[in-house]
């Protein structure tokens, strides 16, 4: 391992260390995610005022937009993990990449469904083949492809590495989804929240949106850690540290 990587990070990438680390953090992440999610829902559905143009119908934004952000964010994490897995063959990176795929697929699916409901109310159609909607659908297919490819191999590690390749290639779709509304004439409107420059949403509406964003991020951490822990146990089932856990926790 190259010496620029800090020792603690190197240690954390060993399965038993990460198993304990994830186990310690997971309850906190899930509690915070639930709390923030409830606060965001109350803020978005009750406290936030109706929109001048869309009335109360716009409130689905508090689900749709955080999920859409997560669908791209998780793909980014999966892509980076896939890259590390392909080059350095770190077991933890393979596991993280493969555990991210179903979570990302769920967020993408929720994005498409809530977007469809919103579109029916506001635009007048459930679906249209514009660039934003189509590229988000491609994102769902990429996730499903990664999941399918991973499970089509007898050997899990070989499956993970093959699927990691697809995950890595598919990462070009992430900027396409994000910039599709700028590059093409689309029915979908442009970005509301901008990192650079002012956002075009009132402060009373933006705080529940950002709170929900934090909640979905924490939910992802909790879900990822849970999945990673079980996958690590399964992959390392012959090792001593797993046997020790089985003995201590099996007795309890």
């Amino acid at each position, binding site marked *: 391992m190259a010496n620029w990587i800090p020792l603690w990070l190197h240690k954390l990438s060993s399965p038993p260390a990460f198993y304990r680390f994830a186990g310690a953090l997971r309850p906190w992440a899930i509690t915070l995610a639930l709390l923030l999610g409830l606060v965001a829902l109350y803020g978005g559905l009750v406290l936030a005022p109706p929109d*001048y143009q869309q009335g109360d119908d716009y409130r689905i934004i508090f689900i749709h937009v955080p999920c859409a952000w997560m669908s791209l964010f998780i793909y980014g994490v999966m892509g980076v993990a896939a890259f590390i897995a392909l080059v350095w063959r770190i077991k933890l990176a393979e596991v993280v990449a493969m555990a991210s795929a179903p979570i990302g697929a769920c967020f993408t699916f929720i994005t498409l469904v809530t977007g469809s409901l919103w579109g029916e109310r506001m*635009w*007048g159609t459930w679906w249209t083949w514009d*660039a934003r909607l189509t590229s988000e659908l491609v994102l769902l297919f990429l996730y499903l492809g990664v999941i399918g490819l991973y499970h089509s191999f007898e050997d899990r590690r070989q499956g993970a590495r093959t699927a990691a390749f697809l995950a890595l290639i598919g990462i070009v779709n992430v900027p396409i989804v994000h910039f599709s509304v700028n590059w093409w*004439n689309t029915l979908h409107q442009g970005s509301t929240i901008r990192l650079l420059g002012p956002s075009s949403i009132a402060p009373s509406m933006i705080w529940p949106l950002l709170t929900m964003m934090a909640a979905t991020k924490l939910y992802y951490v909790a879900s990822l850690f849970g999945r990673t822990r079980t996958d690590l146990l399964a992959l390392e089932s012959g090792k001593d540290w797993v046997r020790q856990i089985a003995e201590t926790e099996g007795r309890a």
Partner: protein
Amino acid sequence: MNPTRQRRLTIVIAVLVAVIISAALVVYALQQNMNYLFTPSQVQAGEATRYQNFRLGGMVKQGSIQRSSDSLKVTFTVIDASGAMPVEYNGILPDLFRENQSVIATGHMDDGRFVATEVLAKHDETYMPQELKDAMAKAHAGKHIDEAANQDKAQP
């Protein structure tokens, strides 16, 4: 970094670069000919003549909406910065359909009119409460009055 990892890193980066270049070319090519919609001035310039059916996008002109009293038929004019196109539609309009609203109509040209089979409303990315909208409209109107007053002063 040992030679095996070095080799793998090179291969992975090479594949990634190849994919990014091809995706960029595809995106660039699609920007030339993947038009979700045509604006009225584009249609008047004859850019949509290749298509039997196409989408027309623009703003609904103020005061141009005329509803038939005995059917769902509605006619209105879609405008953009420099063009205007009369549209005829027979069906249920989305809730957001109103004057000065962006719409996208799918249909074909018939005798100088655009006959739509579907009309979709487009909304922008701005979200704010009604009171803020009113306050901003007031501030905007106030600015106009100020400008008008200043102009009056400039011309004694």
